[in-house]
């Protein structure tokens, strides 16, 4: 199950981390992400996903092992790491601290010492992209949950990072908001960016990721391409997860276990291909269904 070796952009190498109260969060964990990858880290609550992400962001230091960015230990990288790696926390209230949305988004740029005019234009650009231009003057604590999430994402995107680390970005989002966020992340990936995100939502993982790591009790129980990981019931069960609905439905409808569609679109084509009496099924998903596909 080893990934073919290539140049990793971000690499966690046999890292272990224990919190000061003795809670062992991670043990001997190795995770890699290449440029342009969307890597999903999935697992039950308390499996160590957030801690792993914090290690990757250089916000926590592993007691054993190492975390490298472009081959350099993150401990040795200061400002460069902050410029290259954008982090979005699970709870936007933990992330947003400035008196106004504008100041919050601009904070990182000001820390990088950019001139005022550039800070302003970049903030407006990212706000326009995320549709939050109208709330730039408002205090973050008065925003709705969805708006806070967008602002938190804007604070990470504004410094034009090469890696985005997102902790449970899809939790509390409505299906359409999830879809919009996925589109933003796909656009970021298409621009050459790398995304590492944690999630419990196997549907999102099936739709978005190129590579998946499953964590359970601070250890990686399985990793690989989404198709192989999300069809591995046993490993998923260890992490208190289930296969995607498309897989479950296909198995129920056909009784077949060899083929494993993980997305709705794959489910329909698998059904069409495998069964004569499926002529009534559409050849592909309608635009509306694609929009709801998560």
């Amino acid at each position, binding site marked *: 199950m080893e990934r073919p070796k290539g140049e990793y952009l971000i690499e966690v190498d046999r890292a272990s981390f224990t919190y000061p109260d003795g809670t062992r969060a991670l043990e001997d964990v190795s995770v890699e992400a290449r440029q342009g990858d969307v890597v999903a880290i999935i697992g039950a609550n308390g499996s160590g996903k957030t801690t792993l992400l914090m290690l990757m962001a250089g916000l926590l230091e592993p007691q054993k092992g190492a975390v490298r960015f472009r081959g350099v230990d993150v401990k040795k990288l200061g400002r460069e790491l902050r410029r290259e790696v954008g982090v979005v926390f699970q709870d936007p209230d933990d992330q947003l*601290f400035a008196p106004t949305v504008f100041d919050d988004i601009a904070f*990182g740029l000001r820390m990088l010492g950019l001139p005022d005019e550039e800070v302003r234009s970049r903030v407006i650009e990212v706000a326009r992209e995320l549709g939050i231009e109208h709330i730039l003057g408002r205090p973050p604590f008065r925003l709705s949950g969805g708006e806070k999430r967008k602002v938190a994402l804007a*604070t990470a995107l504004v410094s034009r990072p090469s890696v985005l680390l997102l902790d449970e970005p899809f939790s509390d989002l409505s299906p359409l908001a999830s879809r919009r966020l996925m589109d933003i992340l796909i656009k970021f990936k298409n621009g050459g960016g790398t995304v590492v995100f944690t999630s419990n939502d196997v549907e999102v993982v099936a739709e978005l990721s190129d590579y998946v790591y499953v964590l359970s009790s601070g250890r990686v129980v399985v990793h690989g391409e989404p198709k192989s990981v999300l069809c591995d019931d046993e490993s998923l069960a260890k992490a208190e997860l289930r296969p995607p609905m498309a897989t479950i439905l296909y198995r129920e409808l056909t009784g077949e276990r060899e083929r494993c569609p993980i997305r709705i679109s794959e489910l329909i084509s698998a059904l069409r291909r495998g069964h004569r009496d499926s002529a009534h099924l559409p050849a592909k998903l309608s635009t509306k269904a694609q929009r709801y596909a998560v």
Partner: protein
Amino acid sequence: MPKSALTSFLNEVAEVLEAFSIETSSRKGSPEPRALLISFIALAVAASFSRGVYPPIIALATAILLSRALGVKLKRMAKAAALISMFILAVTLPMALYQAYLDQAPLSDSSALLWGLAPLLLRCVAATSALVLMTQSLGLMGLIRALRGLRVPPRALLILVLFLRYIPIMLRDTIKLLSAREVRMVSSSVKDHWLMLSTVASGLLIKGFERAYRLQMAFKARGLDPSFIPAPNVRAGPLDLALVALSSTLACLLVLM
């Protein structure tokens, strides 16, 4: 105090404290951050250590003139001044009245005692206002740059910035905790109400630690490391030197007055 009044009060306090970390756009031709910092601090010190009624008023007026010249609005300063006045009166007024009662002084004497509080009140208001105007004129980043320029250690700066942002955030968290308890209040008795609200303390203590940790993480994630910020390499010009000289001289005169 009615419950809504308590939360609105905390909201106002948080808003005033936010003035200490608000960001401003630097204006062309404005003095060098270090010169501004020294000038405002000199005025705040002069207001704090002066005697009588007029020196704090002069210090405050100078701070207002200076910040107006930099385009700062006075709304936040006015709020801060009102808040500080309230605190000072809440602490000193009962003391003054109690002293008058102990001395068995007639009412006319106690009013003289109250009048004696005026310089203290003015000193506190003027010093606080000068500091609010300073942070508004400089902005958070300007303040960090100025302090770095004065060779303040990066770790001390980090603590200062954390402190400036942490208090308003904690006040907002307190409001949330209070509201969560208020919506579960069944009894309408004032005593029960205050008993229920007093349970906020333990929650606040735990949340306070957690919040400080997360805020520090958020700062770190967004690149807040004052050691990254180079000390300003701009050399102080004649305007900056004149400003520092003028404010320092004025401060000395006001303290000696």
